């Protein structure tokens, strides 16, 4: 047997990550703690005798290689294009519901949940699409926060056909029409659909609703409003 089997050792570690601090702190941390550490070894070919070339156990693949395989010159690290700058949403208005909330870009909190801004502000999920772009853009805001109504206190009153407006940092505006208002138990929230980055543009406005659990200080449901560009 002349095959030199160089089996890559791929340590398949559970992909769930320990939560880590803010982006730059994680890398500059002297301990590197909490990084999801995975290492593996490539599979360099070992050079044997010419006889090793003949592999009499695995039949040669008889399928030709597509001659039209795309070729591109790879970027080097310094040449990587800056991510395309898009105009972030800065406020959302639903006149009929007396909603007029500033919007700030947000990400994920320490628990892996949507990192809502405090108070009377709405958060735009900055890793997903901008409202109006392909996929499902998400704006979420509190129904209440520290004893006072939040930016989306009245969102549960929305009805299909209502109009809303998103204003962007470049001053542009885009109107949307509400096509659905749903209430889900939090465990039933269709997160993958609400945060998809594919498909026709839609805007999901999310807040809380339903019964309030005083022990955990949280609502049991989410109220979800789906709107599409007019």
């Amino acid at each position, binding site marked *: 047997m002349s095959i*030199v089997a160089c089996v*890559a050792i*791929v340590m398949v570690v559970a*992909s769930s*990550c320990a939560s880590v601090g*803010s*982006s*730059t702190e*994680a*890398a*500059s*941390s*002297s301990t*590197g703690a909490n*990084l999801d550490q*995975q290492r*593996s*070894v*490539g*599979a*360099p*070919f*070992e*050079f*044997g005798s*010419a006889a090793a070339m003949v592999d009499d156990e695995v*039949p*040669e*693949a*008889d399928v*030709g*290689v*597509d001659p039209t*395989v*795309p*070729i591109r010159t*790879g970027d080097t*690290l*310094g040449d990587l294009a800056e991510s395309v700058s898009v105009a972030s949403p800065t406020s959302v208005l639903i006149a009929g519901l007396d909603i007029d909330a500033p919007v700030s870009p947000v*990400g*994920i909190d320490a628990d*892996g*949940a*949507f990192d*809502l801004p405090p108070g009377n502000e709405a958060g735009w999920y900055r*890793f997903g699409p901008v409202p109006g772009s392909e996929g499902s853009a998400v704006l979420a805001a*509190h*129904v*209440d*926060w520290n*004893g006072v109504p*939040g930016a989306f206190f009245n969102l549960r009153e929305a009805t299909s056909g209502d109009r809303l407006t998103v204003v962007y940092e470049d001053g542009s505006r885009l109107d949307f029409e509400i096509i659905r208002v749903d209430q889900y138990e*939090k465990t039933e*929230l269709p*997160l993958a659909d609400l*945060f998809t*980055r594919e498909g026709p543009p839609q805007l999901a406005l*999310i807040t809380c*609703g339903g019964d309030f659990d005083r022990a955990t200080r949280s609502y049991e449901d*989410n109220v979800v409003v789906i709107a599409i560009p007019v």
Partner: protein
Amino acid sequence: MTLLSRALAATALVAATTFGVSSAAGAQDTSEVYVVHGIPGVDVDVYVNDALTLEGFAPKDIAGPLDLPAGNYDIKIFAAADGPAATAAERTDDAVIDVAPDVPGGANLSVIAHLDGEGAPTLSAFANDVTETAAGEGRVTIRHTAFAPAVDIVAGGAAVPPFTNLTNGNEAKADLPAGDYPTGIAATGTTEVLVEAPVTVAEGTNLVVYAIGDFAGGTLELLTQSFDGLHSAPAAVNAGNSGLLADQTSTSTLLVVGLGAMALLSVSAVAVNRRQV
């Protein structure tokens, strides 16, 4: 001796091997394979199963994905020729690299021609991790495929695990919160940055960085390959902490109860009044 002449002087390097992927992945019968040219200074012609597949393939070029059925492939790489022969059998020069790897099914592979730890051309295969990343995170994979000593990735004067003691032919990877990391490359065990390597981790993307070339010869470069669309959704949207909706309900309930009580009192009062009449 230049890299080019070294490459051309190399006798045909012959081997057979198995790309490293567990057989569990073999349920599907094809793999996506990328071919990466990581040897500076020499264009090549690549023959797969004797047929000219990549002509004049230049340094830093990335071809793919090739959708390859599982099986054994004969790969021969020659220095690029003008009007190269259509088949490897017709080439009169010696192959720089000549290998016959088994490609498994169901994998995502990058096969890179690069310099080994002695500066000789070689071919390595790496499995690309295209599994989902947690919301808010991206993945960085660093592959040492340069004629260079062992290295650490450093930031803020310290090594960044797991990117330590990386040697030729090996990789390390980690999932990190999306953002900019002002990292650099240092010889293992030191913190002096020899090559700046600032990395931007994009959410839901595996950024693969290959160190290629000859460090001492001044041709070291950091070639990148990105795999995006690995994102996942946040775990929850928790958007209320005060129970005002519940309070609102109980307030109105109290109001109703109160009005009811007042009504009863009124009725009683009327009754009393009547009685008095």
